Structure formats: structure tokens, C-alpha cells
């Protein structure tokens, strides 16, 4: 994550219940409406995502098989708020979702068949807030699933 791209959290959870937790992130809106807001790691503005050059998640496939990476929210987002995700990849892979796609409560695959050798995925998230949004501080769990291709 942005605070240190050389310190990786090893993901060992094999189901959603046991999913490996890592740092929380936040979208801090300042006006209404507001579009394409980038997240902070641990609420710290100095550890903010900055597009693909400083993605919120840098993912390394440390297994011994190629994997797909998909994302979903545990529950619906607050009214007036959407989150879009996209990805850029290095190394060997079949596809990488370069254009933003809206995330929801079903798994959306952003990366397909990324190799376990010298291949990385940069995941970037953006959030939009329409005028319908009401004042809130709401936390919703985002799951990342890596599954053998």
C-alpha cells in the first residue's frame, strides 16, 4: 500500500470469514457532488493513492499458480456513493481491467491469469459522491479474492 511498497502483507485467509485483514482506507469527500476521489491509507493524506503510479494496492502473486483477482463489497454502499476500480499489470497476465468498472456486492474480476513469476497488479480505486449523499462516516468491508486461474 502507499505507505511502503516494499512491505507486503501475506494473505493466508482461505475464506471470507478468515480473510486476512490489512490497513483500512478512506474516501474523504470535501464537497458535494465530488467525483473520482482517491483513497487514503489509514486516513493519512500523505499515504494517498495517486493513480497507477501509487496504487492503493500493489499485489504480488506469491503462490505457485497463476491467479485471478476479484473484488467485492460486503454490503451496499451509502446512498449517492459509488466506487470504481481498475488495474494495471506488469509481467505476464491474460487481462487487466484498464478502464474503471463499478464495484458492488458481487465479485468483479479486475485481473485474469496473472503469473506467479515477476508479475504484479496495481489496483486503483476511485469514489464518486452525488448530491444525494447524506452526511455519514460509514465503513464497509472490501474483499479481495485470489483464485487459481
Amino acid at each position, binding site marked *: 500500500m502507499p505507505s511502503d511498497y516494499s512491505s507486503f*502483507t501475506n*494473505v*493466508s*485467509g*482461505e*475464506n*471470507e470469514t*478468515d*480473510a*486476512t*485483514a*490489512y*490497513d*483500512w*482506507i*478512506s*474516501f*474523504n*469527500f*470535501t*464537497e*458535494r457532488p465530488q467525483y473520482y476521489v482517491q*483513497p487514503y491509507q489509514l*486516513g493519512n493524506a500523505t499515504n494517498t493513492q495517486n493513480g497507477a503510479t501509487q496504487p492503493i494496492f500493489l499485489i504480488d502473486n506469491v*503462490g505457485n*499458480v497463476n491467479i485471478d483477482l476479484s473484488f467485492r*463489497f460486503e454490503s451496499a*454502499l*451509502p446512498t*449517492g*456513493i459509488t*466506487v470504481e476500480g481498475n488495474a494495471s499489470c506488469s509481467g505476464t497476465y491474460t487481462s487487466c481491467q484498464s478502464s474503471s468498472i463499478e464495484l458492488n456486492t458481487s465479485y468483479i474480476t479486475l485481473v485474469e491469469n496473472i503469473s506467479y513469476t515477476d508479475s504484479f497488479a496495481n489496483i486503483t*480505486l476511485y*469514489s464518486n*459522491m452525488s*448530491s*444525494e*449523499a*447524506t*452526511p*455519514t*462516516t*460509514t*465503513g*464497509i*468491508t*472490501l*474483499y*479481495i*479474492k*485470489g*483464485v*487459481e486461474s
Partner: protein
Amino acid sequence: MEHKKMKSFLFSMLLAVALMTSLGFAASNTYYAKTVVYFNVPSDATFSIAMPSDYASFTSITGTTEGGATATDWISFNFSDGTQAALQEPYQLGSAGNAQAGATQPIFYIDNTGNTAEKFEIYVDSSVPSGISLYVNATCGTCTSPLTTLTLMGVAEGSANVLTTSLATTDFLNVTLYANTSAAADGISSRTVYLKSTAV
């Protein structure tokens, strides 16, 4: 000796198979990570104002300080006598065709365009000229504690009149002003009236 070596090799093989089987069960073809994503949406107490010339054309209020207050059209009380006890209603931009006519045609028609209920206050920046009294009242659909009683306008923010303690985002506020005179000196003078919203 040969027999011993064979047994040892067999044990190693068995151990290796046992270890491989164990690792096979420990590994998975699916892994999950999770984080909590917080969405922080601040309160927004914006509002807009329409005036008698056109109640469908609203001015969006973006000023967040008194110094940066959004200006709306000027209004005037055009007295015909230095002592005029009857309450007078203001004109928008000095035009009699755009006069206030009670709550049905208020001088300020306020729409809560924010994302939260809002408290509204009104005040004048400094005392009005001697012999002139400036009053205010307000009506609304379902707001809380509207200032329905005609009340002398407070001077400065610290003495502001509360027009309503809570106007929902779906509601509107009608603000009406009145003034009369008692032995007021002739002349033209002006004051600034402020409307203030606060998220509640």
C-alpha cells in the same frame, strides 16, 4: 548392512510422502484479503434563494463566511412619510412590480439544497436609522419552530433572529420583512441583511 540401508531409505520415502501430503492439504487455490473502506461525507448546509421577480430562479449560496457572503438582489423600503406606522413591505431592486406580498410572495424564498437539515438565522449588520423599525417573520411547510411572530430584526450576528431551528432538505422557508417609521429623518440609507444557515 544393505538391509539397514534399505529400511532407512524406505523411512525417508514414507516421511517425504507424509510431508508432501500435509503441504498439499495446507495449500489452497483460493485466498481472501479484506479491508474496511470508510466513506466520510461531510455536512453541507448550502441553500438557495429566490425573490419576487421569479420564484423559479434561485441564487445558490456559496459564501461560508460573512466576508464571503453571496450577494442577492438589493431590496428597499420606500416610505412616503417620516411617520408611517403602517408596516411597509420591501421591493426587489426598487421595482414595485416585484414587491413582497406577505408569505404568499415573500422577499426571500429559501430552498435547503444541502444534504442535512439546516437552522436559519437573519440579522442586520448595524442599527437601522433612527425612527425606523425593521421586522422579520417566517413561515414554512414542516420546519421546526418557525419565527411566525413579527419580531424586530436583531443587529449583528450575536443578536440574530432564528427563523427556524430545523429546515429539512425537502422543505422551503418563506422570509418576510416589514418596516415602519416614526419621526424618521428624510434621506436614503442602507444596511446589509445577512442570512445564515447552519447544519443541524
